Every structure is written in C-alpha cells, then in structure tokens.
C-alpha cells in the first residue's frame, strides 16, 4: 500500500488489518444468516477452505514461506467477499471454482499479495457470471425457510435444485418487470405489490446492506479505510439514480433502493476500497469511487447482468494507474502537482 506523503508509521500488520476487515463484515454476515438463511455460513466455510488450499499450493510452487503468507488473512478476506457476492445456495463447486480462480489467477499469477491490478473477489464474480450465468442468477426466493440440513444438501448437490429454491434478485426482478411491462409497470406498484420487496429495497437484503454499512463505518472509524471511496461511490450512485428518479419516478427506482440493493454497500465499503487494486491519491480515490458508482448504476439498470458492482470495480481497477498518475498531489514548494518526480 503506497500513499503520498506524509507517511506516518503505524504499528499495523497486514494480518491485523485483514482481521479487522473480517470483523467489520460480521454485522452484514449476521444479518444475512438471520434474514436470508444460514447457508451463507456454509459458503463462507467452503470459500475459506478453497482459498487456503489454493494459497498453500501457490506459495508452495513459488517456494514462499507458508506460515507468513497464510496467516496474513488476505486470502480469507477474498474468500469471504466471494462467498458474500455469490448466490447463497450456489453449488459448492461454483464458490470453490471462483475462489481458486481468484487466488491462483487474479492474485498469484500477477505476483501475489499487493501486486494484483484487479480485485480478486470481483474477478471471481465476473468469471463465474460469464461462465455460469444461470447458476449465478439463482437467488433463493423470499421467505424460503429451509432448515440448515436441507440447504447444505442443496449446496453439496445431494438434493435436487428445484425452481422454488431460486428466483431473481430484487434488482433483477425489477429490471425484468420494467422491461417486459414496457411502461405499463411502475416502480411504486412493483414495490408495493411484489413479495420480494421490503420497506426500502429487497426484503431481507436491505438489512444486510445496513449491516455492511455499519461494518464499513466502523472500518472508517478505525482508519482502515478513508472516507473518499465510499462517499464518492455512494454520492455518484445517489446522484445518477436520483436524477433519473426525479425525471421519471415510474420507471426508475429511488436512490435509496439502489443503495440498499445488490452489492452497492458491500462494494462501496469493502470492495472499491481495496488498497491494492484501487487508487491511492485522495483525489484519485474520489474519482475511483465516483466512477465505480456511476458504472455500477449504468450496468445494473441498462445492462444485461443482475448487478453492476463487480464489472464497475473491475473497469475502474483498469483505470486506477492512470488516475493515480494524473492526480498526484502538489509537492510542497512546487507550483504544479506531481511534476517534481517526472522528468
């Protein structure tokens, strides 16, 4: 992690940071397990195991010290983000494939911790939604209260995947209804009549998003992340969704709906703030967050995929080096920003 001066020496190791990120995810995970189903806990375990095995194998091949890199916890954070972005009842191999791909290709082939240009968790999501679109779009229908054993059987492939187990996400359902309705459906009616919507957004999911928000604010308070990326992400998402919503409230959902739907909160606080694949300068972070929020909205509303956060973050990852180069802060005593270190 490199940031422009001033450099302050702080006694934080990678493993401490990663542990705190995991703690910050707990409110969201708790809400997820309580409201949507305990299957997410199984997925977290599967993803963590897959990540640790892949990490061990890659470290072994590269003859790097196992204990040091395995205990830094970065693989676990990647694994948890993958488990949280995949459908909770996805078969075990889907989560495992995504995680192994993230660790092996997106992380280690690019040089390991701190060298990856793309967020590994989002690479896993993108790879899987491109390769297995059907499985990645099957989200458990609302109010499905299966016992943990049954959920486990579905994940392990012991029980058949029946249609009742799966539905579209609230975001996807709204997009499809609005598209098929061709103007006859409006957002307010959908929110009021359809079972999958709660008070603000998807029923249950809205509170999971609140859980991520609480964890994210805690990370900000602990100075694990700065305010720039999350604020810029949320502000740009609110700005674009608010503008379209004011123009045509029947066809576009409110900013609150978009903030509490899909991966917006998780993306704003946990994914776009990745110090390795994101921007490092303060102004760069603002541009990065704003760009990710804007792209996420465009992809999720006008695109073909259920949610846009993953692709938005990956596209901004691609721009991050250039943004960093163009937003070098002013060097003390120099007139122009960032000219000092370039010939």
């Amino acid at each position, binding site marked *: 992690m490199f940031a422009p001066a001033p450099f302050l020496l702080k006694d934080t190791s990678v493993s401490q940071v990663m542990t705190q990120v995991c703690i910050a995810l707990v409110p969201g995970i708790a809400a997820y397990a309580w409201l949507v189903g305990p299957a997410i806990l199984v997925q977290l375990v599967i993803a963590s195991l897959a990540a640790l095995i892949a990490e061990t194998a890659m470290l072994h091949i590269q003859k790097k010290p196992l204990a040091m890199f395995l205990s830094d916890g970065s693989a676990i954070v990647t694994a948890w983000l993958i488990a949280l972005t995949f459908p909770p009842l996805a078969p075990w191999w889907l989560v495992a*494939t995504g995680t192994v791909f993230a660790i092996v*290709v997106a992380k280690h*082939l690019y040089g390991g911790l701190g060298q990856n240009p793309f967020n590994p968790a989002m690479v896993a999501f993108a*790879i899987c939604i*491109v*390769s*297995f679109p059907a*499985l990645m779009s099957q989200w458990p229908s609302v109010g499905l209260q299966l016992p943990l054993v049954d959920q486990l059987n579905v994940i392990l492939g012991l029980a058949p995947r029946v249609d009742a187990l799966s539905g579209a996400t609230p975001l996807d359902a709204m997009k499809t209804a609005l598209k098929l309705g061709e103007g006859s459906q409006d957002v307010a009616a959908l929110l009021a009549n359809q079972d999958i919507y709660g008070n603000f957004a998807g029923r249950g999911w809205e509170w999971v998003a609140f859980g991520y928000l609480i964890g994210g604010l805690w990370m900000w308070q602990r100075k694990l992340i700065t305010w720039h990326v999350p604020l810029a992400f949320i502000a740009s998402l609110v700005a674009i969704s608010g503008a379209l919503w004011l123009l045509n409230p029947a066809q576009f959902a409110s900013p609150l709906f978009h903030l509490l739907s899909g991966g917006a909160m998780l993306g704003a606080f946990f994914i776009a703030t990745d110090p390795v694949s994101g921007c490092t300068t303060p102004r760069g972070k603002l541009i990065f967050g704003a760009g990710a929020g804007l792209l996420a909205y465009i992809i999720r509303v006008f695109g073909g995929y259920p949610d846009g956060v993953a692709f938005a973050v990956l596209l901004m990852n691609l721009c991050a080096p250039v943004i960093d180069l163009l937003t070098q802060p002013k060097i003390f005593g120099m007139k122009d920003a960032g000219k000092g270190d370039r010939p």
Partner: protein
Amino acid sequence: MITREEFRTIAGNGIWKQNTSIAQILGLCPLLAVTTNAVNGIMLSLATIIVMALSNVAVASLRNLIPHEIRIPVFILIVAALVTVIDLLFNANLHELYLVLGIFIPLIVTNCIVLARVEAFAAKNPPLQSTFDGVFMGVGMLWTLALLGAMRELLGNGTVLGGIDMVFPNMQPIQLLPESYPGFLLALLPPGAFILLGCMIAWKNWMDAKAAERARLKPPAPVASAGCH
C-alpha cells in the same frame, strides 16, 4: 541436399525451440478464434502447413530471381495464390468445416507465421531445407493448437474431438466428462484461450529452464562443488 544435422535443427526449431505459438507467439488471431475444439485447430494447422510448405519451396526456388526491393509484394502474391487454392479446396470438400473456420482460411495470407518463414528462412535457404522448415513450423503450430483446442473443449464442454463429424462423417465427438458437467464457458471464450496459452508458454519456459539446468550440471566441473550457499 540436406544433412542429418540440418534436418534435426530445422525440426527441433519448428516443433519446440521456435514454436510459432508458444515461443514466437505469432498468429494469435486464428489461435484465439478457432481453437474452441481440437479438430478446428488441427484442420486450420493442416491448411497452414500445406500453404507454408508450398510457399516456402516456391520462394526458395525463386529466391535468386526476386528483386530484393519488391520481395514482400512478390511473397504475398505467391502466398495468396496458394491460399486461394486451399480455400477453394476446403470449400469444395469440407464445406461444413469451411463454414466454421470461415474467414480464417483466407486470412492465412496475412498470417505472420507464413510471411515470417518465407522472409526469414525460405528467402535465404535452398528449396529442400525450406520445405522442411515450412512443414515443421506448421507441425509445431499443429500440436499447440490441437492441445489448446482439446483443453478448451474439455473444460468448456466436457468433450474431446468435437466437430470430428465434419471431417469424418461416421465419427462422433467423445463425451469424456459426465453429462451433468455444467461446462466452464470461459474456456471457450477468447479470455480462456489467452489464459490457457499463458499456461502453455509458462510450461514451455519451465521445461526449457529445467533442460538448461540439467545441461549446466551435466559436465562434472571440479570446482562446482565448492560453491557457497
């Protein structure tokens, strides 16, 4: 005539050392586009082999007659004429496969492998050596494209030899993985080809590094054991 040593060098260069796909990294466009299964890769490679062998022998025979300044247009004309023949042959005899390979057969004209061998080898060497060079460069391309195609279709569909019925109508693709295999679509898309090609290049470099290490250790140097660690 050709000596045994020359032949070994030409064959070794074509098949492994200067392999078009995993050492020179040439011709990526057809490589990405047609290797969605092994049969397509093999058939395109066969077409390329024929073109390369014939164009190499033609250029090598005419190499002393072609004015140096306009050699590239002349090479292109020769290659284009041969490719047109191959294109028409595929269209007439393997029409279904021709539809699959599509534009990539005419595009052999612009394939940098063909022009590279003509320019780098055939323009400077006698016809016999040039013919072998064209054939073995093509064989190198053939096995890499076949391997890449086989890996991609196995990962993507769970089959091997998909599309074999287009070449031999009485043969069927073999389903290697169980019917319930969901198919890893990424492997069939261009990014999958890039990733697998990267793995093959890494494998070649690893093999070469191991061979170099063995060659280094082979002569028993008396001072080698005194190295400090």
